[in-house]
């Protein structure tokens, strides 16, 4: 007796396949994550992403925070918030706020960013930095602007610190690197200040604002920029990779789904009809399949992108228009084998229209194949689109994993050992394609058209 199966038994068999169920589980997680991303991450991120200024507060090319657990000492960013100000107001006003923090890393942070907020015009801002051993470093800024970020590169900051280094080492220093300046803030004091180890313990920061009018100082911040950031590190602009990786997910899934549904359904119908019609129509349609097969998709879209403005929909359409031939070839083979069955002729003998024959005999046999291919094809499209993005072809204003990888190779990330920059977006491509591949293979094994080529 033949083994032919019903829709319900397909579903049952699928649920028995371990990889298929695993794929389904991953897919559900991915979908949930996408919903979270769409709902939770503002779309302004896309424009912010391209603005390198916006990310200066983050450590640049920093590894993920968890490398600390692997024995690498890479401090995280520590924000010291100063919001409770005390002091006098009036024509001569002075405000101050003090906060303590603990530093237990062996190395100093990679930057110090001071963001004062006082509303109005002040004529001086002082940072009084007390180390655990009691030594005090003072940084003075004249005529500060409220809300501006002052970091270690700011001339006034640099000058104050140079002065302190001279006071400790007793020698006259002209050029101090930012590393040296940060070391000065954190090292054990003494003549070998710049080469001493970091003092661990409680530091205290006091912010003093002097003005000749009444000011309203509020949440100011001294940010000790770490050498590690987030779960996936940052790129050379300081953009967090994890954010980019998350933001790229909905785009990939959406594009993958639209393009693969279009190309698979189109290809299956094209090939199915070609095989079903036979004769000259088959010849012409198969030749048409060959024409599209002979177009190198990647280069074609690259060239096209210089004539047409890409958007998600346009890109999906173009990818679909170029990737259906494979499915058409297989659908044609399946249909040819169905067409050789006598029941097709029997239908004709009974006066059943060929449209109905196609719908009752051919389409049901193609449906499971279509499902398998759609699933498999989503991963194909995702990889295809990310490959294009990697080459620099993507719609404007989107964050893509391929785009992140493109920047990684341009920045020679491998050479610098910034492995996190390439590892995570790549893994994300894998993770996004994997469920579709697993589901596709599971369905394919069940429906097993055992298509022998030609």
């Amino acid at each position: 007796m033949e083994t032919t199966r019903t829709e319900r038994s397909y579903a049952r068999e699928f649920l028995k396949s371990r990889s298929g169920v695993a794929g389904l589980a991953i897919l559900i997680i991915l979908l949930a994550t996408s919903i979270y991303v769409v709902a939770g991450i503002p779309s302004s991120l896309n424009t912010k992403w391209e603005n390198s200024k916006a990310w200066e507060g983050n450590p640049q090319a920093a590894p993920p925070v968890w490398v600390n657990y692997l024995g690498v000492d890479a401090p995280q960013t520590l924000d010291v918030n100063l919001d409770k100000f005390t002091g006098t107001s009036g024509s001569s006003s002075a405000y101050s706020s003090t906060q303590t923090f603990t530093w237990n890393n062996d190395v100093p942070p990679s930057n110090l960013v001071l963001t004062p907020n006082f509303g109005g015009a002040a004529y001086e801002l002082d940072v009084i930095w007390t180390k655990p051993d009691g030594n005090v470093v003072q940084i003075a800024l004249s005529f500060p602007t409220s809300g501006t970020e002052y970091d270690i590169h700011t001339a006034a900051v640099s000058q104050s610190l140079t002065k302190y280094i001279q006071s400790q080492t007793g020698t006259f220093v002209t050029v101090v690197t930012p590393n040296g300046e940060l070391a000065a803030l954190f090292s054990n004091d003494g003549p070998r200040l710049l080469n001493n180890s970091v003092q661990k313990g409680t530091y205290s920061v006091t912010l003093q604002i002097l003005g000749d009018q009444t000011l309203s100082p509020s949440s100011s911040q001294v940010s000790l920029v770490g050498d590690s950031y987030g779960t996936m590190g940052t790129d050379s602009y300081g953009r967090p990779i994890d954010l980019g990786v998350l933001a790229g997910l909905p785009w990939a899934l959406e594009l993958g789904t639209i393009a693969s549904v279009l190309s698979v359904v189109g290809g299956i119908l094209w090939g199915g009809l070609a095989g079903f019609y036979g004769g000259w129509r088959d010849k012409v349609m198969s030749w048409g399949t060959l024409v599209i097969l002979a177009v190198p998709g990647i280069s074609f879209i690259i060239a096209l992108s210089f004539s047409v403005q890409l958007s998600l929909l346009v890109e999906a359409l173009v990818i679909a228009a170029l990737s259906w031939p494979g499915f058409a070839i297989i659908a044609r083979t399946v249909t040819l084998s169905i067409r050789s069955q006598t029941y097709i002729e029997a239908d004709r003998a009974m006066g059943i229209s060929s449209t109905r024959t196609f719908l009752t005999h051919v389409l049901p046999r193609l449906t499971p194949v279509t499902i398998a291919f759609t699933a498999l094809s989503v991963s194909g499209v995702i990889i295809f689109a990310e490959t294009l993005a990697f080459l620099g072809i993507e719609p404007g204003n989107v964050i893509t994993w391929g785009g992140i990888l493109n920047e990684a190779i341009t920045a020679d990330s491998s050479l610098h050992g910034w492995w996190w920059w390439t590892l995570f977006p790549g893994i994300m491509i894998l993770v996004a394609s994997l469920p579709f591949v697993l589901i596709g293979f599971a369905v394919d094994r069940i429906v097993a058209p055992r298509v022998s080529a030609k």
Partner: protein
Amino acid sequence: MPAGSTEAGPGVVLRAQDVRVYFSKKGFLEKGTVVKAVDGVTLSVRRGEILALVGESGSGKTTLGRAAIGLVRPSSGTIILNDGAEQEVGRARGRQWKALRKRLQMIFQDPFSSIDPNMRVYDALRIPLAAQGVRRREDVRARISDVMKRVGLPEQIINNYVFQLSGGQRQRIGIARVLIFDPVLVVADEPVSMLDASLKGDILHIIQNESRTNNVAFLFITHDMAVARVIADRIAVMYLGQVDEIGAAEATVLDPLHPYTKAMLQASPVIDTSLKDKIKKVNIIGELPQSTAHPSGCKFHPRCPYAMDVCKEQVPALKEVKPEHYVACWLY
């Protein structure tokens, strides 16, 4: 005009007149070769009769059968359906062609591939009805249950999938799909050759019964003389696209005229244990020629032990040698 066509009386439901079906096998940059599947056949089928069309593979019997009901368009010649009014089958198109489908039907050889195994029995019977405009639920139900009774299928299998059924049951459904239209003529293309011996009898009985009680005419295609004798009223023997001999079943089997018919009968096995140490003689020479290179004159002459000069040059016509027994051979 060759005999066999003279019987265009009121009892004749289908008349084929000098029908030829040529297939051109034309490839790219290639001179087309022509396969003469049916090459000038004239015969008629009477109402309620079972006419067996016997021949080897390549004799054109299946093509003739398909042409008779309009599934293959003849290259030349006419096929007339006489069901009240005369109608040309070979040229029917569109609506006319579709209307013919109710009256001219076909049973196929392979019960496993002639019905989509993924269908339910009910749908396998309902869809043909729907195609012919029978859509009312009660009508459909009534006709399905009637026809299932006629072919001896239990009603409870109606919701089963076809793939769950045995070969014998599938062939019954194949017959039921045909009988549901109450056709005038059914071409049965080797309907029992793929069935086990224990099932053949029952299927043949259904066909015989339909021809006798419901006046359905059958063009019964078979390669097996024994089956033809059991089922048919008349037998027509085909060789390379032509009818060599046509006559009553008994007469054709017991007293064959054409050398080819004789050879076929000699070759057919019988229950006879005395033959076991003997080499069986069959009066025939060589093998069937290629489908594209038919011999001149009588097509059988290169294989005929009695071939004469005239056979090589001239095509013999069907002659009524005995009453109702026609043969195309220069020996007569």
